[in-house]
């Protein structure tokens, strides 16, 4: 039987193993932030650090995280010293991690007496110290203020947990029980995947099967990239920081077979949580590039191999110690938008106007510990031939399934959600209209503190080819007298009194093309459906 068919059959088995690990982690975790699979990942890797299979139902932007961090684990704990049953843990943004709250866990899988594969899981845990509960402090000027730093450490062996380390972790969490629950979930995930990989290795020549699989994916990825016109294309996008703007600049060079993505010229890192660690930037780049190749390609090393990504050290997209990385989302989104802009130049007609992005926030109790972390989604940019969808997950490939429902939130927390609605007229005008942003009104029943983490609120998502920009969203405090006061896009521990409301408005997407050329039927439909009022 030919190698493609073998790869096809093995692919399913490996993918299922990674998927199963992610489901175990997501379903058994306590952190409500990840119950819908948003900020999580599971993967199978080999001892050379190659990504073999990745979970699909989790956030795509995490696709490079486990792959980026594993080499640092192996550096700290050479393979020869690993024993069956060992479990390693890390959250170091400078060593492939993301930020303090994203815990990465690895477990070696032994074959022939030595570690041959690794299974890995990642989730955003409930709390791990730092200035703000939940890990979204926007005034963290260095990494130490973001939360407990965890370089690669061995957290368990076949004999059980490293009790000392577990006590340290628990002591550094505002919600120690939940943290330990999340840790158990992470380990359960790597264990499940490890059992599957052990079975596969016992049944067949797994190493050869994986080599063939990755080589086939790589060949396919090269083939797909070769369809892009060769040349160098540039793009850039700004990240908001009060009155300042930090620019992410990219040059995408399409070569014979492969792509160079170079962030040379990107602004330097800043002493605020807007930088991104290299693994998150890489995840964003992979997501952006994969929007231009066969979407059915499996997520493994074969996709990474033909792509060279240069991220200057000490820049916004690759921060160095002690610069904080927790607010990376805006920078990653800017990197993605810059790659889209560059490739739009390569492929006119396939690009899009800019999109409103995911706007995160957290509300925590001022007098007792409770935490609501969530996000709302902005409107997508319009593109040639198509209006932008309303309030969906542009730039990370998710959907609104990650947004928790009103009833479970109110059953658990002292808040009342009064409105979740699209904002009429918020989509950028154009021959094709941008997607609408949303307004969410959350009244707190107790005194609370609010963290916000938004971008594209001061400079709303731009239109393309003559289209208008989307309506800028924002965060607001609605006082007891009903007056709405704006909160900073990156506010931290902003107080809300019992009875006041927190309002999140997401930005609408940019429009595409001259509004005068819009189909009158589409205008009439928008009026009828309430998407526009005039």
């Amino acid at each position, binding site marked *: *039987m*030919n190698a*493609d*068919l073998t*790869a*096809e*059959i093995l692919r*399913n088995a490996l*993918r*299922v193993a990674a*998927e*199963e690990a992610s489901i*175990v982690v997501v*379903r*058994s*975790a*306590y952190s*409500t932030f990840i*119950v*819908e699979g948003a900020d999580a990942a599971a993967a199978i890797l080999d001892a050379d650090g190659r990504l073999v299979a990745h979970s*699909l*139902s989790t956030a795509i932007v995490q696709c490079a995280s486990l792959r980026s961090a594993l080499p640092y684990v192996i550096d700290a704990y050479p393979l020869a010293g690993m024993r069956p049953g060992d479990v390693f843990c890390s959250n170091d943004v400078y060593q492939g991690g993301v930020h303090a709250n994203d815990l990465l866990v690895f477990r070696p899988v032994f074959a022939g007496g030595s570690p041959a594969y690794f299974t890995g899981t990642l989730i955003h845990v409930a709390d791990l110290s730092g200035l703000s509960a939940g890990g979204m402090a926007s005034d963290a000027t260095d990494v130490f203020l973001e939360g407990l730093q965890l370089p690669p450490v061995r957290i368990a062996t076949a004999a059980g947990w490293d009790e000392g380390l577990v006590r340290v972790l628990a002591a550094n969490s505002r919600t120690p029980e*939940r943290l330990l*629950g999340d840790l*158990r*979930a992470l380990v*359960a995930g790597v*264990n*499940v995947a490890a059992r599957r990989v052990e079975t596969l290795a016992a049944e067949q020549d797994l190493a050869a099967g994986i080599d063939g699989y990755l080589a086939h994916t790589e060949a*396919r990825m090269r083939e797909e990239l070769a369809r892009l016109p060769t040349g160098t294309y540039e793009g850039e996008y700004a990240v908001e920081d009060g009155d300042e703007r930090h620019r992410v600049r990219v040059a995408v060079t399409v070569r014979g077979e492969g792509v160079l993505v170079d962030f040379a010229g990107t602004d330097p890192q800043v002493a605020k949580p807007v930088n991104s660690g290299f693994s998150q930037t890489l995840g964003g780049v992979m*997501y952006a590039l994969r*929007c231009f190749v066969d*979407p059915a390609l499996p997520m493994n090393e074969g996709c990474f191999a033909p792509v060279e990504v240069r991220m200057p050290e000490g820049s916004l997209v690759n921060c160095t110690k002690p610069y904080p990385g927790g607010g990376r989302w805006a920078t990653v989104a800017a990197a993605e938008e810059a790659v*889209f802009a560059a490739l739009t130049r390569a492929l006119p007609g396939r*690009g*899009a106007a800019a999109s409103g992005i995911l706007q995160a926030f957290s509300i925590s109790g001022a007098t007792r510990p409770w935490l609501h972390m969530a996000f709302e989604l902005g409107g997508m940019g319009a593109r040639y031939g*198509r209006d932008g*969808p*309303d309030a*969906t997950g542009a730039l990370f*490939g*998710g*959907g*609104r*399934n990650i*947004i928790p*429902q*009103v*009833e*479970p939130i*109110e059953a658990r927390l002292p808040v009342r*959600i*009064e*409105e*979740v*609605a699209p904002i009429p007229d918020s989509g950028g005008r154009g021959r094709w209209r941008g997607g609408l942003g*949303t307004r969410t*009104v959350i009244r707190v029943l107790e005194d609370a503190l609010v963290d916000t983490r938004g971008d594209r609120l001061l400079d709303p998502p731009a239109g393309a080819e003559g289209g208008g920009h989307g309506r800028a969203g924002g965060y607001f405090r609605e006082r007891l007298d009903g007056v709405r006061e704006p909160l900073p896009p990156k506010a931290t521990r902003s107080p809300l009194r019992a009875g006041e409301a927190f309002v999140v408005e997401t930005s609408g997407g940019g429009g595409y093309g001259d509004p005068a050329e819009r189909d009158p039927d589409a205008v009439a439909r928008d009026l*009828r*459906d309430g998407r526009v009022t005039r």
Partner: protein
Amino acid sequence: MTALATDIGGTFTDVVLVADGRLHVAKTLTTPDDPTEGLLRGVRRVLADAGVAPASVDRFTHATTLATNVILERRGAAVAFVTTRGFRSMLALGRQARVEEERYDLAYSPGEPPVPPTRTFEVPERLAADGTVLTPLDEDAALRVAERVADLGVAAVAICLLHSHANDAHERRLAAILADRLPAGTPVVTSSEVWPELGEYERATTTLMSAYVGPVMGVYLRRLRDRLAEVGITAPVHVMESAGGVLPAGLAASRAVYTIESGPAAGVVAAAREGARHGLADLISFDMGGTTAKAGLVRDGRPGVTHEFQVGGKGSFGGRRPGTGVPIKVPAIDLAEVGSGGGSIAWVEAGGLRVGPRSAGAAPGPACYGRGGTLPTVTDADLVLGYLDPDGFGDLRLRPDLAEDALARHVAKPLGVDVVEAAAAVHDIAGAQMGTAVHVVTVRRGVDPRGFTLVALGGAAPTHAAGLAERFGIRRVLVPARCGVGSAAGLLHADLAIERSRSFLAPAAAADPAALETVLADLEAACRADLALGDARRGRVTRAAGLRFAGQAHAFTVELRPGPVTREVVDAAVQEFYARYRASYGIDLHDPAELTVARVRVSLPAGAPDLRGTEPPRPVPARTRRAWFGGAFREVPVRERAACVPGERFAGPCVITEPQASLVVPPGWNGVLDDHGAVSLERAEDP
């Protein structure tokens, strides 16, 4: 007792009649424009075969994909949706997940919302999470909404207000105001009646779909009843529901969402029944027809039931990725379905071989049917490999030459392999895909499939069952008599049943057993009323509760011990939850648990007709055929099942044929035919 069971599938309509202890079977082509047409054709045929008068039919059970198709094809009734102020766009915004390929689609479109914005309304009112009224229903505003809904001329209304699962007063009042303004008989469906559980989005979609499908189902069932009456059948019509019971036709119309997995559920029920006859309680049903393959799990004799179901779901893990379809919160037999059936088309893309999900269906059918199909299917591959008998396939003669041509052109040449290699690859890939379905219901749930028996149902299943079993280390395969119409046979034995639930949020340690008892008793009374069971001693009652760790989001449904709820009953349920959690996630945790929901199912066992043994064997000369086993063609014995004597044994490799099915027994497997015509295969100890 004379019982008729009918199952309308995508390709074939199966009809089974039991009269005087004998089974009569007909398989007709499904007639999509008016499914009663094909059905009636089959019914007339079996009645004539059996020489039975239509009026003597006592029971008519029916499985239909109507509800699913109405939703997938968006041809339900025009519905208006009314909700709490501030949430008018709940359904349009949705909770859609983007999965796999579509996540990289910059031109992604979420599709049309399930109800257009012009038919969504909101009213001022608000309850707290515990059901306390915060803002009374604004009746003037409700009246204005009612007038606007009346002006739209919709066929039904769905109402879902926030927290109505905890207090249905506002929904009931609003429904009354609306009904008052609408033409008499217009269904006004409230979420607190349809599915009173926490989670407004799923409750709203379930309610909406009830309103959307119900009127269409009602019309269909009335037509079915009339058509049956025309041929003289006056027996009550019972419709299969997704959880494996049957509903009276009247209830099936008002609770149409309960029938969405009607057909597939029948297959699992049939598997459970067949297993029970062999004293086997742990089974995997494997139902493979022309378009899809479905796997379901039976443990301790009972099919697994899920309360999270996505119609039109997407994703490669059984098509049920949460958030990818329209979520419907009704109980359904837990099934995984993949687009691999006998008619699935094999194709080569970028050097890789794919099988399905496109199917050649009944028209034009596989290439070997010789009815104009030119694309290679799984059936064509199976024929080339010698697994199917060119002459022994019902009325149809299969054409190996056409199968070979199709495989050569579309698979072998592009891949640079010979036709047999291509056929073996198609067979293997189809097998791997079916394996995914089995994997989802077993391994993915932490269930080790090795101790289970695989039950093969549907025309294409026997050809693939033993190979599939080997993949999972399963040592026993059961192939019921007439397995080609296995789902319809399952209908004969389905119990009359209904399930109801209500949210019940409380920490398990502090929960008041008396309060839970009250809720369960109310639910039981409602179920009895649904089934018109006056006598409290009739019917079997199953009580269950949702349980999860306090602070987590995902709950397990745990059955409660029979009898009144006491502290001990709650504690036992918590222990059972801990065990299930450990089995599923490998985490031995005993943290505080909380109750989430109370459920009751009431069923009335079917007076199932007994079947006599098989027809006497019909002697047929022994034959052999070349078939592909272990990477080479071998000359293997071919037997007709009808020619076998009960107790007869056969050893693989061999092929057992019967009309519309072909049982492949690979090397290392031994089979025996039982008194009822079922074949039991066992894998010999490892060679």
